C-alpha cells in the first residue's frame, strides 16, 4: 500500500505532463523509496492513480534495472563490471566484496544489511573501479577503501568516502 504522502507526491507531478502515465517511473521510484522495493499492492495503487491497468504498471516496473520487486538489503552495493572498470580491477574488487560479506554477487547478507550486485556501466569509467551504494557513488576504489566504506556504513549509516561532484582528472581540481 502506498501512503497518502506518497500519493500526494505523485499527484503533484501531474501538471508537468499532458498524460498521467508519464508519472509511472517517478511513481515507482517513490513507492520503492517508501517500502524498499515495489510490492504488488503499490503497483495496484499506482495503476489507480495513473488510470493504468496493473499490467501496464508491471510491464514498466520490470523493464528498468533500478526497480526491484523483491526486498533487498539496507545497503544495495552495485559494482560496475563493464570494460573500463574491469580493465582496472573490478573483478578483484567484486571477489573481495564477496569474501568480506560472505555472499556471492546477487545475494543479501543474513543480517539483511548488504545486497551485492554486479551491474553495467555507471559512467564512472575514468574513476574506476567504482560502485554505487544506494544513492551514492564511490570511485577510485581499492580493497582498503572498500573495507573502510563497509565499516562506515555499519557504524554510521554513511561514509565520507562517497564521491562529490564529478571532476577528473583530479589534479585539475
Amino acid at each position, binding site marked *: 500500500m502506498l501512503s497518502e504522502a506518497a500519493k500526494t507526491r505523485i499527484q503533484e507531478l501531474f501538471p508537468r505532463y499532458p498524460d498521467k502515465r508519464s508519472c509511472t*517511473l517517478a511513481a515507482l521510484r517513490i513507492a520503492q523509496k517508501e517500502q524498499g522495493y515495489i510490492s504488488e499492492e503499490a503497483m495496484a495503487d499506482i495503476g489507480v492513480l495513473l488510470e493504468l491497468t496493473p499490467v501496464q504498471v508491471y510491464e514498466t516496473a520490470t523493464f528498468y534495472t533500478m526497480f526491484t520487486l523483491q526486498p533487498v538489503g539496507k545497503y544495495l552495493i552495485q559494482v560496475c563490471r*563493464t570494460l573500463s572498470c*574491469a580493465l582496472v580491477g573490478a573483478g578483484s574488487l567484486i571477489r573481495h566484496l564477496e569474501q568480506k560479506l560472505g555472499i556471492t554477487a546477487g545475494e543479501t547478507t543474513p543480517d539483511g544489511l548488504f545486497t551485492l550486485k554486479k551491474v553495467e556501466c555507471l*559512467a564512472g569509467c575514468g574513476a574506476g573501479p567504482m560502485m554505487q551504494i544506494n544513492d551514492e557513488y564511490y570511485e577510485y576504489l581499492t580493497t582498503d577503501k572498500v573495507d573502510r566504506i563497509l565499516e562506515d556504513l555499519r557504524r554510521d549509516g554513511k561514509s565520507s568516502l562517497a564521491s562529490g561532484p564529478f571532476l577528473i582528472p583530479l589534479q*585539475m581540481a
Partner: protein
Amino acid sequence: MPKYEPVLLKNILTPGYAGDLAAYERAGGYQAIRKVLKEYQPEQVIDLVKRSGLRGRGGAGFPTGTKWSFIPKDPSVPKYLCVNADESEPGTFKDRELIERDPHQMIEGTLIAAYAIGAKVAYIYIRGEFTLGAKVLARALDEARAKGYIGTNVCGSGREIQVWLHRGAGAYICGEETALIESIEGKRGLPRAKPPFPAINGLYQRPTVVNNVETLGNLPHIINRGVEWYTSLGTAKSPGTRIFSVSGHVNRPGNYEVPLGIPLRELIEEHAGGVRNGHRIKAIIPGGASAAFFTPEHLDVKLDFESVAQAGSMLGSGGVTIMDETTCMVWAAYNLMGFFHHESCGKCTPCREGSGWLHTILGRIEHGEGRAEDLAQLEHLCGNIAGKTVCAFGDAEVAPVLSTLKHFREEYEAHIREKRCPMGERVLAHAGH
C-alpha cells in the same frame, strides 16, 4: 594548463567555480538566451546553428540545425524538446561532469533550443543512477525558474518555456531517442520504428527534438561568440570542440576538451598522460563501446567524425578506452557482449537472441572451450544482427566482435587451439564475470 582553450569545460576548470546561478551569471551566463529572445526570430537561430555546423554529441553526429529544421512551423501544434542526459555508453562520462559541475550551461542551451523549435515544454531525461546530477539539476532549475529564465514569461519576453526534470530508472537503451520518448511516456523504453521520425511524430505523437547534453552546452557559446569563431575551431566538416572521456590503461584518465580533428595519439599521450606502467597500447575504442576497436596503427587517425569513420570506426559518444598489451581481446569482446546482452531491450529477435548467442560463444572461447567452427559462427551471427533491428543497437553489439576478429584473429585462434586463454588466469582475475 590545458593546451587548448576550453569552451564547455571553461567554467568547470576555473578554480572556485561553484556552478550555481550566481556563479554562472558572473561568468557571462544567460546572456545568450537574452540575446536570442531580443534579437533573433526562431528561424534565425536555426539558421545560425546550421551555419555553425554543430553536430550532435550523443553518438550519431547528425547536424543539429538540420535536425531542428525538420520541425513543422505551425504554431498551433505543440512541440517538445527532450534533453538526452541518459549517459550510459560504456567509456563515456562527459555529460555527468557537465551536469554535476555546470548545470546552468546546459539549461541555457535547452532554453535556446526550445525557443528555436517553438517548444513550450522541455524534459531533461537524466539517467536514473545519476542521483547527484538529478539533485544538482533540480536545484539549478529552481534557481532559473525563480530568476525568470524558465516559466511563462522567459526574461520578460512573453515567451513560455517550461523545463522539467524526468529521471530514468536504469536502461541503456533509453539513450536511443525513440526509446527515451517512450520512457518519458511512462512505458518500457522500446525503440520505435522510424519513420515516422520524432520531428514529425515524437513525444505524445507531437513534433519532438532530442538533443544531447554536450550538444546543448555548445549553443550559448555559438550565440555569444558567433559562427565564425565556432567554425575556426575543429575541422571544416566537424567544427567546434569535443569532450573526450579517456579511461582504461592510461596514467591520467579524465575528460579532455580539445578541438575536433586532433590526432588520437595526442589525446592519449599528451592529455591522458600516456599508457600506464610503461606498457604499450594494444587496442583503443575511439567512441564508446558501440564503436569498432582500433589498433596502434590507428594512432594517427584524426579525431573528427569523417576521419574516424573513414578508418573503420566512429566518433560516437567520445568515450575513448585504452587497453595495453596485458589485455586479452577475446575477454574484452566477451566483457562488452555481457553489457550488450544485458542491455538489449528485447524488442527485436536478432538483437535479443543474437546478443545472447554471441555472449555464450565468446565466453566459451575465452574459457578454453571454443570449437573450430566458432569463428565462422560468430561472423554468421553478426551478419544476421547488424542492420536487421529497429534501432542501431544491433550494429553496436556486433562492432566489438567483428573488429576484434578483424584485428586480433590470431588471438581467437590461439584460444581455440590451446584450449585456454593464452593470457592466463591473470586476465580472468580481472574479468568481473
